[in-house]
């Protein structure tokens, strides 16, 4: 059969198309972005008119996906791990409503924080919401599990989480596809109260979620994604979750691991399978990519029973992504002493592109900060976060999307003046508008600089939902139009930008200063796209 060479994320996109989804709903975020981009560029998906526009944030994305499921069709929502925090409200509640059309939430975790604020493990959310979680170990499983997840969701009536780490998201391998399924027809949920979480109904629906839990465990027990591999040496039993299994087996090239191994790919955990491992073996060793979720569950709180080791007792590193060397060390396999790199090498920290407008904004803002003192620039997440590093050293915070405006407001409430918030156009539409409304309502003395590069640049130059309307949005929210100011971030406008910021700083109230110039990478990307479109 013909194999295609696909990234883990692409395998998930292809599987969702082949499983007959009618829509993908997402907000960009590394390493999940390319799932949606793959569907956006796929011929079959386009001919079927599968919904693929970016949503404003992860919460709107997941709610839209649930709406499509309500209407009977299959839908997928995709986000990075921290995106699920933004969507946590709908995520927890849709576990209780359950689904009508199959619904899969694909969450890409980022152990080692290659491009994220933290390395939280989404399996905890799955457990918290009491829904099934699939965790593939390779690209083919990423495809097969996603393909099967929609039917599984319809069979159980629950949303299914697909959880992948960066390493699998951004690694390529050959993948064999399955037959393309038709889309579902529109049909209403059978139970008319299924989606009405009034407390009286909510209690009933929650009880039925609880009642399904034993069945979920049984399904995990039978699942082809959970496997028990026999081993002769019973001194140790090994549990590997997702890609951790690969790192174990890499150390046994002839597939001759002497210990019994349970490979986990589907949650809730298969209890009987794990009990059998515990009964057969003297000790347990747990390897999981992420937080020690399984390790904590199996660990012996009072230390009277079976010893469990893993990330918590130092057998594996407490944080960061795993690799084959970690497993080798934990299992006492000897290694050749590797050559070390000369210590004269220097790093290449990421920096703003040549010609980036964010530079011009920071250069102007720095002139003001030199006058009023540091410690008052609340920033946000995007390319402009590089303003935290030399040569700028301008910004003092970067916490979660939207927190620039709201944290600056809190500091202003505490008595700090002047305060500055600096936020990108996409971050502003993602979750800055509500904070701005708080400022307007309370007439906060705040200077909000919106760096509008007409793109979601950090994640690869996707279209931003702002679409050149930021000043209109701010006016609509209630900002006084005379304190909505515009500038073009260019070197030649330096003095003008400084004086606009200075004028607004002296105003006691809400000022919004918008710097608008398109991201140079986005311009290059669109040019290239135009060229290829012309050639075709």
């Amino acid at each position: 059969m013909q194999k295609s060479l696909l990234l883990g994320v692409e395998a998930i996109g292809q599987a969702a198309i082949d499983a007959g989804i009618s829509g993908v709903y997402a907000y960009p975020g590394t390493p999940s972005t390319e799932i949606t981009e793959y569907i956006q560029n796929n011929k079959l998906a386009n001919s079927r008119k599968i919904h693929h526009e970016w949503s404003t944030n992860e919460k709107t994305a997941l709610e839209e996906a649930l709406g499509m499921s309500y209407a009977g069709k299959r839908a997928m929502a995709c986000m990075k791990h921290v995106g699920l925090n933004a969507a946590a409200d709908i995520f927890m509640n849709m576990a209780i409503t359950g689904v009508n059309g199959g619904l899969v939430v694909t969450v890409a975790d980022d152990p080692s924080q290659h491009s994220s604020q933290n390395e939280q493990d989404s399996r905890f959310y799955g457990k918290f919401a009491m829904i099934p979680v699939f965790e593939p170990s390779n690209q083919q499983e990423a495809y097969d599990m996603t393909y099967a997840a929609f039917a599984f969701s319809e069979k159980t009536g629950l949303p299914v989480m697909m959880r992948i780490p960066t390493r699998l998201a951004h690694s390529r391998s050959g993948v064999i596809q399955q037959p393309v399924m038709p889309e579902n027809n529109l049909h209403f949920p059978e139970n008319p109260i299924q989606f009405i979480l009034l407390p009286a109904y909510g209690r009933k629906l929650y009880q039925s979620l609880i009642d399904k839990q034993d069945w979920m465990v049984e399904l995990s027990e039978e699942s082809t994604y959970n496997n028990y591999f026999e081993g002769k040496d019973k001194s140790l039993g090994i549990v590997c979750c997702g890609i951790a299994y690969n790192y174990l087996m890499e150390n046994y090239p002839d597939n001759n691991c002497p210990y019994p191994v349970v490979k986990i790919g589907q949650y809730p955990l298969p209890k009987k399978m794990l009990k059998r491992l515990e009964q057969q073996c003297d000790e347990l060793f747990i390897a999981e990519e992420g937080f020690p979720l399984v390790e904590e569950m199996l660990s012996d709180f009072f230390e009277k029973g079976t010893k469990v080791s893993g990330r918590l007792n130092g057998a594996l590193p407490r944080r960061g992504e795993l690799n084959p060397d970690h497993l080798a060390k934990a299992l006492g396999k000897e290694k050749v002493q590797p050559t070390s790199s000369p210590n004269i090498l220097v790093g290449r920290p990421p920096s703003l592109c040549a010609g980036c407008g964010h530079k011009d904004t920071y250069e102007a803002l720095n002139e003001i900060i030199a006058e009023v003192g540091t410690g008052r620039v609340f920033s946000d997440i995007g390319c402009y976060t590089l303003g935290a590093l030399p040569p700028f050293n301008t910004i003092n915070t970067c916490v979660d999307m939207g927190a620039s405006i709201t944290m600056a407001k809190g500091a202003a409430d505490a008595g700090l003046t002047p305060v500055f918030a600096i936020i990108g156009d996409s971050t502003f539409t993602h979750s800055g508008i509500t904070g701005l409304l708080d400022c307007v309502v309370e007439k906060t003395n705040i200077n909000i600089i919106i760096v509008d590069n007409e793109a979601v640049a950090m994640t690869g130059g996707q279209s931003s939902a702002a679409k050149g309307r930021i000043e209109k949005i701010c006016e609509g929210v209630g900002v006084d139009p005379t304190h909505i100011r515009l500038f073009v971030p260019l070197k030649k406008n330096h003095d003008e930008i400084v004086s606009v910021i200075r004028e607004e700083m002296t105003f006691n109230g809400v000022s919004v200063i918008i710097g608008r110039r398109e991201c140079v990478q986005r311009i290059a990307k669109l040019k290239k796209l135009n060229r290829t479109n012309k050639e075709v």
Partner: protein
Amino acid sequence: MKTDIILAGVGGQGILSIAASLGAAALNENYYLKQAETHGMSQRGGEVVSHLRIADHPIWSDLIPSGKADLILSVEPMESLRYLSYLSPKGSIVTNTAKFVNITGYPDLDHTFEELSEKVNIVRIDADQIAKDSGNPKASNMVMLGAASPFIAIHEDIIIKGIESIFKSKGEQIVEMNVKAFHAGKAFTLAKK
């Protein structure tokens, strides 16, 4: 058969075209392949690395274990030294000598390379110049692939087929230029051997 390759460079240098050519070649031959890439933050002028593994048997890990890489193929000299811990004692380094200087304090590496060449097999090639000489300054990465090809356990004809399949959409002339660059790189390494 297996070849584990660390591909190194700086964001924007396009190391993935090398990976794509080898990937297409491996797929044509029904070999197994895994190739882990760097996306995101590090692409903006930062260091990028890709682990490329090709074998005639299934491959477990997406990451190459330390001390197991058969080849470090780097399109930038300093980057060729960053991942030495992955190199097998019997492995080779093939690196471009054209520096990519986007930082201050770029170290002088001549002495380091001299010392290292006593321990491991190193091919240092000015791929940018050779690409220019062969008429396509943009094909420096294919010169690098050619220079590395004697260390890769895939037959040359199959790699060339891979190159053809990834540049096909850009027309015959581009394909030819890239194949020519590949041969120029290969000739350089063979002359040194």
